[in-house]
């Protein structure tokens, strides 16, 4: 259990303030969404180990969780100056580039991260999706950063539009939205807008990143088998989620007055649509 390990790591740090267990501690606190505490331990660790790439990465992750992308990027870039092949920092920078829709930058960082750790299946999946959006052949060398600012070609724009509007036909004109996220919470297709029309897909993805894997592990431990769907009722909406291909998650949200049965039906249809699209894109 994380709670027990957290106590053990805190005790070790109290005994030995130079201990590197702060990295594991920060990670566990992040997983429990205790971000302020995680930031405090990350800063303390960084103070004692300013030349350790892992220490900058630990703080970078916390800052990314807190939505401070600028500081997260600073930490990860610093980590790369210390260790140019630091896998987690490359991964983090790739995620941030994707988040700001710098697909070429994301492709470059994710490819380097995968080169540093070829066994990272989640990363391979994320890179495939980025390349799909870019319509770049997998073996093509990363483009120099200066080219990242070019306007997208018509083919790239068309692929991005297709992904964005993947679920539009089945959702109709009602107050509904749908999204396809990969196992790391990166948006693959669809849109997610809040009541004021603001696009919040990346934020939703960040909160749900790793959910499918986490649910899979916990349900296995509890002897419940695979998860099939998740229905969440909130004050203003009903949200339904289901697992997709390759650890992806399909999500449908509808206004609270929409019948739950209809939301489930939309989820089934969105799941089929996502599977077809991912199969075609693979």
């Amino acid at each position, binding site marked *: *259990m*994380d*709670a027990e390990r957290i106590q053990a790591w805190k005790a070790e740090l109290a005994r030995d303030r130079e201990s590197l267990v702060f990295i594991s501690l920060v990670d566990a606190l992040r997983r*429990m*969404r205790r971000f302020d505490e995680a930031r405090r331990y990350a800063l303390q660790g960084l103070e004692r180990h300013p030349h350790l790439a892992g220490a900058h990465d630990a703080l970078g992750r916390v800052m990314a969780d807190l939505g401070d992308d600028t500081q997260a990027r600073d930490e990860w870039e610093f980590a790369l100056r210390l260790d140019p092949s630091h896998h987690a920092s490359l991964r983090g920078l790739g995620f941030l580039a994707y988040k700001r829709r710098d697909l070429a930058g994301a492709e470059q960082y994710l490819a380097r991260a995968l080169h540093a750790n070829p066994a990272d299946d989640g990363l391979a999946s994320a890179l495939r999706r980025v390349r799909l959006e870019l319509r770049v052949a997998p073996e093509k060398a990363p483009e120099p950063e200066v080219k990242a600012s070019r306007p997208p070609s018509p083919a790239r724009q068309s692929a991005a539009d297709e992904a964005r509007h993947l679920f539009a036909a089945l959702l109709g004109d009602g107050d509904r939205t749908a999204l396809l996220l990969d196992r790391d919470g990166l948006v693959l297709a669809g849109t*997610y807008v*809040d*009541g*004021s029309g603001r696009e*919040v897909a990346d*934020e*939703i993805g960040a*909160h*749900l990143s790793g*959910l499918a894997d*986490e*649910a899979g592990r*916990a*349900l296995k*431990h*509890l*002897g*419940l*088998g*695979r*998860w*099939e*769907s*998740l*229905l*969440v*009722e*909130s*004050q*203003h*909406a009903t*949200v339904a989620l289901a697992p997709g291909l390759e650890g992806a998650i399909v999500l449908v*949200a509808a206004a609270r007055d929409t019948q739950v049965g209809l939301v489930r039906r939309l989820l089934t249809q969105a799941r089929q649509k996502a599977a077809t699209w991912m199969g075609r894109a693979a």
Partner: protein
Amino acid sequence: MMTALQETLGSLAALPGVRAALAATESDGLPVASVTVFDVDADALAAFATALFQRTRLANVSAGYGETRHLVLDAERGRLFVALEGDLAIVLLAEPDAAAGLLRVALQRALKAVA
């Protein structure tokens, strides 16, 4: 308070198809009280259910959907129900064919009773 909570959980655990009923704090995922009909790892169930609730709650906040009230997770061999009041989550683990409507209402009533 603990007696009332334990009694409420006992009533929930007696409903048809329910395998476990427990209360846990959302902030740290630790069980406060539990009644398990069969052998269920209450610690793991509490940690998973509260973490899942927390993630979906934060996603709903980001989307501007307001307070999250209830969630149901369907798995191959079970259904998980979670509802929250303040920092207290009540979690039910039921058989896959358990009546969702009935359990949902019972869970909401139980939550009001112990809140």
